[in-house]
């Protein structure tokens, strides 16, 4: 099992690192863009506003470097040769494990980095006037945010990493069954966009997958909205799996 995981890690190491660098550049770029444009009452707000672009792009950044492996292994029949040596379940499981770990890393590390760097700009913070209300009163767990800002960012990053894992799993499931590389690499992104517009058309903008990327769009009373988007995505994955099971598509084409 460990050997399998090592093997898989070697396969996707380079593209994941490249994607990590790109993601870091995007997050840092948008952070610096925010710092010199906005005047906000807390360093946390810099970081929070700078998430706008990464929250849009993360399905692409997560899926592209990872999910091509399975497609090419199926296309050049490599996977059929593994069948006699490793059991199916183990092989696929180790692949999935590496996939979700990779997708977690791609989102987690750059976001945490930009969170750390945002503390450097505490000089640019503009203190709110006395008559203005405190910005954090409408946010999720305001006391925790004020007292342990870094821990708050850390947990935020973990949550976003979990979302990335779900999207990564979606891409992985597509790569198991579909035959068009473009569809595999872009389907999670397109799901993401369509879900975004459908939900907001039907008047549920707080339940989108996009808005569950920001923990602080929730208040203490409607924290459950955070879970709607991910659960819908998981349901979507399950429906796809069931569809492929019913239509009897095979991963191992023997």
């Amino acid at each position, binding site marked *: 099992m460990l050997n399998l995981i090592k093997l898989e890690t070697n396969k996707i190491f380079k593209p994941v690192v490249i994607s990590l660098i790109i993601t870091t550049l995007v997050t840092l770029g948008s952070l610096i863009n925010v710092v010199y444009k906005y005047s906000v009452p807390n360093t946390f707000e810099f970081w929070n506003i700078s998430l*706008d*672009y990464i929250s*849009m792009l993360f399905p*692409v950044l997560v899926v*592209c470097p990872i999910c091509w492996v399975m497609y090419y292994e199926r296309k050049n029949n490599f996977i059929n040769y593994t069948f006699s040596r490793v059991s199916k379940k183990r092989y696929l499981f180790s692949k999935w494990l590496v996939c979700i770990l990779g997708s977690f890393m791609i989102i987690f590390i750059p976001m945490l980095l930009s969170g750390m760097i945002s503390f450097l700009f505490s000089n640019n913070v503009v203190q709110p006037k006395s008559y203005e209300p405190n910005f954090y009163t409408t946010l999720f767990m305001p006391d925790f945010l004020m007292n342990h800002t870094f821990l708050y960012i850390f947990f935020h990053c973990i949550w976003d990493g979990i979302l990335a894992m779900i999207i990564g799993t979606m891409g992985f499931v597509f790569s198991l069954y579909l*035959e*068009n*590389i*473009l*569809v595999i*690499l*872009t389907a999670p992104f*397109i799901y993401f*966009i*369509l879900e*975004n*517009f*459908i939900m*907001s*058309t039907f*008047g549920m903008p707080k339940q989108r997958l996009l808005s569950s990327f920001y923990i602080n769009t929730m208040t203490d009373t409607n924290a459950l909205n955070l879970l709607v988007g991910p659960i819908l995505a998981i349901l979507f994955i399950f429906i796809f799996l069931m569809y492929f099971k019913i239509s009897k598509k095979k991963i191992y084409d023997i």
Partner: protein
Amino acid sequence: MKYLYKFKMTKILSKKLFFVWFVLIIFNLDNRINGSLTPLQFIVESLSNQYYIIYFMIPMFLLITISDLDEEDKYELIRSKTYWNYFKSKIYISCIYSIVFVLSQCLLIICMSVGLKGNGYHINLSQYEALQFYDGKFSNLIVPIIYIVSYMILGFIMMSLFIYTINHFFKKNTVVKIIIVTYLISFISIKINSSPLVSLLFLNTYIILHHGIIFGFSISINLLIELLFILLLCIVNKNYWNMSFDLNVEKLSINRYKKIFYDKCNINKYYTKKLFSKYNMLSIVFVLLIMCMWKFVSSNESLSLNQYIINVFSGTLIGEKNPLVILEMLVFNLMPIYLLSVFIEAESSFRTSYVNIRLKTSLRWFNSIISAAFSFLFIYTIINILVPILLGAILNLRYDASVYQLLLLIFVIKLLNLIFEFLILFSIYKISKNITVSFFSIISLNLIAMFPFKLIYYIPFGISSLYRYSFILNQYGRNYGLHLNHVIIELLTLNIIIFIYLKRTHKKLIVH
């Protein structure tokens, strides 16, 4: 002969009737519980409910009649000796079926009306359109009920006979197309105030009595008109049944010209069939509907149709940084490009070398792909314009006369822009041999407009965004922006240059 009738009856009486009853009950439940009508008023109101009839009853009837519309059975024809005898069985069926269809619903409504206690004096009749109409004409409401029911039955008989007649003269495909078009016309008819002659084309004129009184005749004359129509259909079937009206599409002159270009490329047909698949068209319509709905929901003003269409095609400003707006633009502009790139990936990565060997020259392959893609983009642009217009018609937005000019303009720019982006996609594909890379590079090229420089105004990616043009920006008091003529000239020249370049180097497109 009896056997034939019975056989046909069992075919047509299906479970769909239960569904019709079920929806009828749900539709009238609210009026039954909360309304303060007398039983007779309730019956009149729910029998002439135009929304229920047009949006549900007529389509269900059409669906039931179409679903067992077969090619004429030779055995039945031989058995009945003459065509007229055979057609008689059809008349019999349509009579019985329309009577069952209407009377069962009428019975249900009568059952529902039992126990209504309103006395009918304290209600505001203005919210019941049909009731108001009949109340002014009759002192006793039982008379209009009889008229409504008989008019409806005759209307349905006429409709089914009409369908059987055109089924005799045309193929089933054409029949379905004709029916869909006529239904769509009547679907829109509620929203439009049309002249009496035009409203003869609408299906609902023959089914809903208070829509049918158009020439100012009395009701009995309307009934007579329907009877005359039925007689006419019968006469056509009795005397002219062996004439052939079937449009032979292949003999039309347009196709002759088409053959000159496409005769040798039968691969063309295959590609168009792949591109215009059901799945592709449905996904286009679905996404466009969602996006146009979203554009409508997100703007909270009372819009005119012109403003709504400008909103839909607004795209992005130069220097737009809001990611949601950029996403909208990308979805509108890149959806056909995405479908095309899926198509290219499927077609050109596995099969090109075989196809090229079969076709002998690669130029033919290139031409057929390009022509299929261009026609796809053409159809997409038309659908993209039609969807907001239809939505606007359903939502009853008012419009100015300048809307036609605007639409023409949008059509030209959009089509040219899409063709340009497709050609760029193709040329990047030529270099990189990887469709994913080329698609994402198209996305990133579209994102250049995020950075505000002066030169970027004429960058041809996303140039169909209306918010970049001076004639739109002038309305907001800004005197800069693109000029239409410049853009069209620019796009045309760029398209021609890239097309010639691709045609010269098309051999590199083939992936082995």
